[in-house]
């Protein structure tokens, strides 16, 4: 008589049926729509797009719904979808200084060309649960309040501002829902330019190389800076946040100032060989952060160094953490010595991807009967024939990890 522990097709089917029920929840509660998720749980959708490396708000909203709100699972769904797409080509470099900014702040200057735009932020709000938002005492805001706050008159919902792109019927992928980001603004020059003029900031230049693509090729370490930024842009927000935090606590300190943090909508242009000029194929929201960090003597005259973070969508916390980690990873470049985990490129870049991490950590749930059996037999034989020194060294991990 033996107990069958090997599962089969039937068990999987039943599990899927249960999952579907669990996702839907009680039937007397209305089903949530993609639109509701997109617009009322917007930041969840933004995160899923950023780490899913696919700017597709509707698909991301669907992923959040299908994943029952588990964002890492949703990111995984979006990545898997992305993986089926062929690569047509690469866009022209985004021009973030031409972004229609809905938020733009600087921690280094009280005022700067283009001004500070606070925008919709949790900063300075008191984190008290707002029971007015709850189901019981629900009543809507006075109409048009948000518009007034932005210095505009009330607008009829659905009405477009002049100059805004027509909302396209989403062909599932690509950038959608442009022009949601509020007032159209003049181009905002980068704040860091202020320092560049005086030579106080290290300059950055285009080396003319075509950037690599981590999603289509595998590269050896050490990475070039653009590959590093790509990798970090896809990395888990929580992982980056903690690494950035660790640099602030002394594990590879870089003393960052936020020169600029901006969230805005940019045009995505594609150079079409048939036309001979770039055409705008989409608009997307981005969050960009530039930090100015402790200075380095560069051939005698010290200058501030810089960190940079660019993330798809509205992802302020991540862009900031990214810029800090990016700067920390430049330690070898500045001969700062690698003193903290955040400065160790292979460590950071190999472990930041949550789809990889999620999969590999969870795979230990799979059966390991065979390896376990092999270990069991070995352990028994070692116990029966103690031929070694038996110094107990073997008690710790043998370095071969159960895989």
């Amino acid at each position: 008589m033996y107990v069958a522990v090997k599962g089969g097709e039937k068990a999987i089917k039943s599990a899927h049926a249960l999952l579907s029920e669990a996702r839907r929840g009680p039937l007397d509660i209305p089903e949530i729509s993609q639109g509701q998720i997109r617009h009322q749980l917007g930041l969840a959708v933004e995160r899923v797009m950023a780490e899913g490396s696919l700017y597709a708000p509707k698909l991301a909203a669907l992923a959040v719904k299908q994943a029952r709100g588990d964002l890492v699972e949703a990111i995984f769904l979006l990545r898997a979808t992305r993986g089926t797409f062929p690569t047509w080509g690469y866009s022209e470099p985004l021009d973030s200084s031409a972004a229609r900014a809905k938020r733009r702040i600087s921690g280094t200057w009280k005022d700067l060309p283009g001004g500070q735009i606070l925008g919709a932020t949790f900063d300075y709000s008191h984190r008290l649960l707002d029971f007015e938002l709850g189901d019981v005492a629900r009543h809507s805001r006075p109409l048009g309040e948000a518009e007034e706050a932005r210095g505009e008159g009330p607008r009829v919902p659905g009405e477009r501002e002049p100059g805004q792109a027509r909302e396209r019927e989403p062909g599932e992928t690509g950038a959608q829902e442009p022009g949601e980001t509020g007032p159209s603004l003049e181009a905002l020059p980068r704040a860091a330019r202020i320092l560049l003029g005086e030579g106080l900031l290290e300059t950055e230049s285009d080396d003319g190389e075509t950037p690599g693509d981590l999603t289509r090729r595998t590269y050896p370490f050490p990475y070039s800076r653009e590959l590093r930024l790509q990798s970090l842009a896809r990395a888990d927000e929580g992982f980056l946040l903690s690494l950035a935090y660790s640099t602030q606590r002394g594990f590879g300190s870089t003393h960052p100032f936020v020169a600029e943090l901006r969230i805005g909508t940019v045009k995505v242009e594609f150079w079409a060989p048939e036309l001979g000029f770039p055409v705008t194929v989409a608009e997307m929201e981005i969050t960009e952060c530039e930090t100015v960090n402790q200075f380095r003597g560069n051939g005698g005259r010290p200058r501030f160094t810089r960190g940079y973070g660019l993330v798809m969508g509205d992802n302020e916390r991540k862009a900031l953490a990214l810029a800090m980690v990016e700067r920390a990873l430049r330690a070898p470049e500045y001969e700062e010595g690698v003193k903290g985990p955040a400065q160790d490129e292979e460590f950071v870049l190999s472990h930041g991807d949550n789809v990889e991490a999620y999969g590999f950590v969870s795979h230990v749930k799979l059966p390991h009967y065979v390896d376990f059996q092999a270990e069991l037999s070995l352990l028994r034989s070692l116990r029966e024939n103690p031929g070694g020194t038996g110094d107990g060294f073997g008690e710790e991990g043998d370095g071969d990890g159960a895989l």
Partner: protein
Amino acid sequence: MARYRTGLNYAYLSEDAKRVVRRALLKAVAIPGFQVPFSGREMPMPYGWGTGGVQVTASLIGPGDVLKVIDQGADDTTNAVSIRDFLAKTAFCRVTEETGEATIIQTRHRIPETPLKEGQIMVYQVPIPDPLRFLEPKLEENRALHALREYGILYVKLYEDVTRHGEIAQSYDYPAMVNRRYAMSPSPIPRFDNPKLRLSPALHLFGAGREKRVYAVPPHCEVESLAFSDYPFRAGESGHRCELCGDGESFLDEMVVDDAGGRVFVCSDSAHCRRRRESLQGAELPRAEKEEK
């Protein structure tokens, strides 16, 4: 077979993604045991659950192929069922549990007991492709060690095992030298299976999805498990017989059968076990050794 989902390419991956894998595989076959980087795609199953193997299989499979998928040696483990289902539905190929019938066998952690034949392809799901990883975690460093054929740390690890335990304490994922050049992880198969790789007439392809590496053991290639002349490689045997088919030669899983700790042993290779039982029908089973409770 019905289409799995409209809008998906044959065998899931786009044709250019398959070409990328195939190019890497050609290089891998040409340099036995060498880990070739490739641009892995996200698959609809999690990393660590066989994405490397599935990408290799998907890039090779055609409608005329006969596919077998095993996990822990068995065709009916949940992950094997799930992967077989996925490939059958996206590649519309015939599936089998019969080792001899399969043209492609995707596996996790085992090599089937039935000897492989020329023309068959084994596809291994690999978690950590580099045998040096747990001794030196840096890829950059390991690349240099492989290039220089500098495998001292592997032997030091085995030597330390001998001094601490009196024998080499690596029961699975036992490193082997391929074609006398590259040290290779055979994936976490039990060391019991290592000898099956040596001079095997089949093509063995290893896919590590998360780590984005493929490597290969071409047919009739020398694969030698690392050891010392005074501590030779031992495949090991269980010392038991299968409770169901009586086989004393195959790799056995231990099953706890009651609350009192009673145990029996059964073949890990479910297809092999079933075939033996069918051929032994009527004949008397070799007696299984009973475990003391």
